[in-house]
C-alpha cells in the first residue's frame, strides 16, 4: 500500500495505458499525477478508499481503480465497454499482484441509464439536441428502465464509492451526464468525477435537481496528450473540475 501521494504517483508511473485509443469512446488516460491526487484526496480527506469497495464506470486501462487498490481499497469493480482497455487494466493489476482485488464487467453505461429515479428527460450538458438512447419517448422506454434500474440498484449495497473520469461528452453529446447519473444511483456513499469546467453551472443545477450534494474539490488542468490524428496541437489542456457528490441521502434504507 502506498504511504503518501507522491509514492502513489510513482507507483502508477509504470502502469500501461491505451495502446490504440478509440476516439469515439474518448479514451484519454487519467495520468498518474491526476489519478494519485484524486484518490489520495478521497483517502485523506474523506476516508473513502481504505477498506472500501470502489467502482469505476468507463474504467479504461484502470488507473483510478489501480490507484484505489494501491491505497488500500478492499475490492475494485470496473465497468468498461472496450475489451482492449480491459485487457490493459487487468495486466496492470496483475503486475502489482493486486488481481485478487478486482473484477471487471463488460457493459455499456449508456445502456444502463435508468432515468426512473431522477425522472427527467434533458440530460445533455453541452447542447439541447441530445442523441443518446434515453431521449426517445420516455413512455416507450419505461420497460427498459425498470430492468436497467434493477441492475443498478443491485450493485448499490456493494459499491461504497465510484471514482471515475467519464468521457467529456465531446464525441457523443450528453454521455458525461449519463455516466454521472448512473454513478449517483450505483454508489452507496459518494461519487468522485471529473467534468469540464465549462459545464459547471449545468452540473450543479442537475445535482440539485437530483437531490445530490455536489462539492467542487479542485480545479485541474487535464492534459490530453497528442494521441489522436485530429489533434493539431502537441498537447491540449482542458480545464476540469473534480467533484465529490454525496449520494448517501438518496439511498437511505
Amino acid at each position: 500500500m502506498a504511504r503518501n501521494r507522491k509514492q502513489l504517483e510513482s507507483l502508477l508511473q509504470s502502469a500501461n495505458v491505451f495502446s490504440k485509443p478509440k476516439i469515439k469512446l474518448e479514451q484519454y488516460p487519467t495520468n498518474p499525477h491526476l489519478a494519485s491526487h484524486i484518490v489520495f484526496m478521497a483517502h485523506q480527506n474523506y476516508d473513502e478508499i481504505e477498506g472500501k469497495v470502489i467502482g469505476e464506470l468507463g474504467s479504461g486501462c484502470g488507473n483510478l481503480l489501480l490507484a484505489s487498490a494501491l491505497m488500500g481499497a478492499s475490492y475494485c469493480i470496473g465497468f468498461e465497454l472496450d475489451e482492449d482497455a480491459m485487457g490493459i487494466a487487468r495486466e496492470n493489476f496483475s503486475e502489482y499482484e493486486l488481481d485478487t482485488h478486482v473484477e471487471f464487467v463488460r457493459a455499456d453505461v449508456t445502456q444502463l441509464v435508468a432515468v426512473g429515479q431522477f425522472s427527467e428527460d434533458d440530460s445533455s450538458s453541452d447542447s439541447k439536441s441530445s442523441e443518446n438512447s434515453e431521449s426517445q419517448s420516455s413512455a416507450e422506454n419505461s420497460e427498459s428502465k425498470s430492468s436497467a434500474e434493477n441492475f443498478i440498484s443491485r450493485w448499490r449495497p456493494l459499491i461504497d464509492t465510484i471514482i471515475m473520469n467519464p468521457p467529456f461528452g465531446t464525441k457523443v453529446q450528453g454521455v458525461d451526464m449519463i455516466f454521472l447519473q448512473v454513478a449517483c444511483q450505483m454508489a452507496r456513499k459518494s461519487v468522485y468525477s471529473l467534468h469540464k469546467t465549462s459545464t459547471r453551472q449545468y452540473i450543479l443545477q442537475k445535482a440539485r435537481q437530483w437531490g445530490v450534494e455536489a462539492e467542487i474539490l479542485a480545479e485541474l488542468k487535464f492534459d490530453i496528450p497528442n494521441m489522436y490524428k485530429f489533434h493539431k496541437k502537441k498537447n491540449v489542456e482542458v480545464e476540469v473540475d473534480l467533484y465529490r457528490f454525496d449520494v448517501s441521502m438518496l439511498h437511505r434504507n
Partner: protein
Amino acid sequence: FFFFFFFSMRLLSANTIVCIVKGCTDNFPLQIVPTVVEQEETECNPEFITHIMHRVDYPALKRMSEDIGIHGLPDELPADLENNEQLIQLLHTALLDTHVQQGELACNKCGRKYPIAQGIPNMLLTENEV
C-alpha cells in the same frame, strides 16, 4: 516472465448481476453455467468477509455457489457469523477464490445468455434489446 491471469468473474459480482433486456423483470439471480472454473487459494480476510456478507443476497449466493460446484453453505446465514471460522473460510472460497473463467450467465425468465469470456461477463445488449 509468464503471467497467469486470475481475473475472473467471482460470485461477488455474479451476486449483483441481473438480466437487463428490455422488459425482463424479476429475473434475479441469474444461473451460472460454467464451463471453466478455477480455484486459487488466497489468504482469507475474515473482516472483509463478514463485512461484505451484510451486502450480498445470501439465498442467491448459496444457489450460485452450487452452480459452480461449491456445496455446504447453510440455508441461512447465522447471526454470529464472525465466530464461525469454518463458514467464513467456506464463504471466502466461494466469493473470492473461485473463478469462473468461461461459461455464461443465463436468465431463466427470458432465456438471454450473457457469455463469460476470459473471466469477464459480457452485459452488452444488442440494439433491439435496449
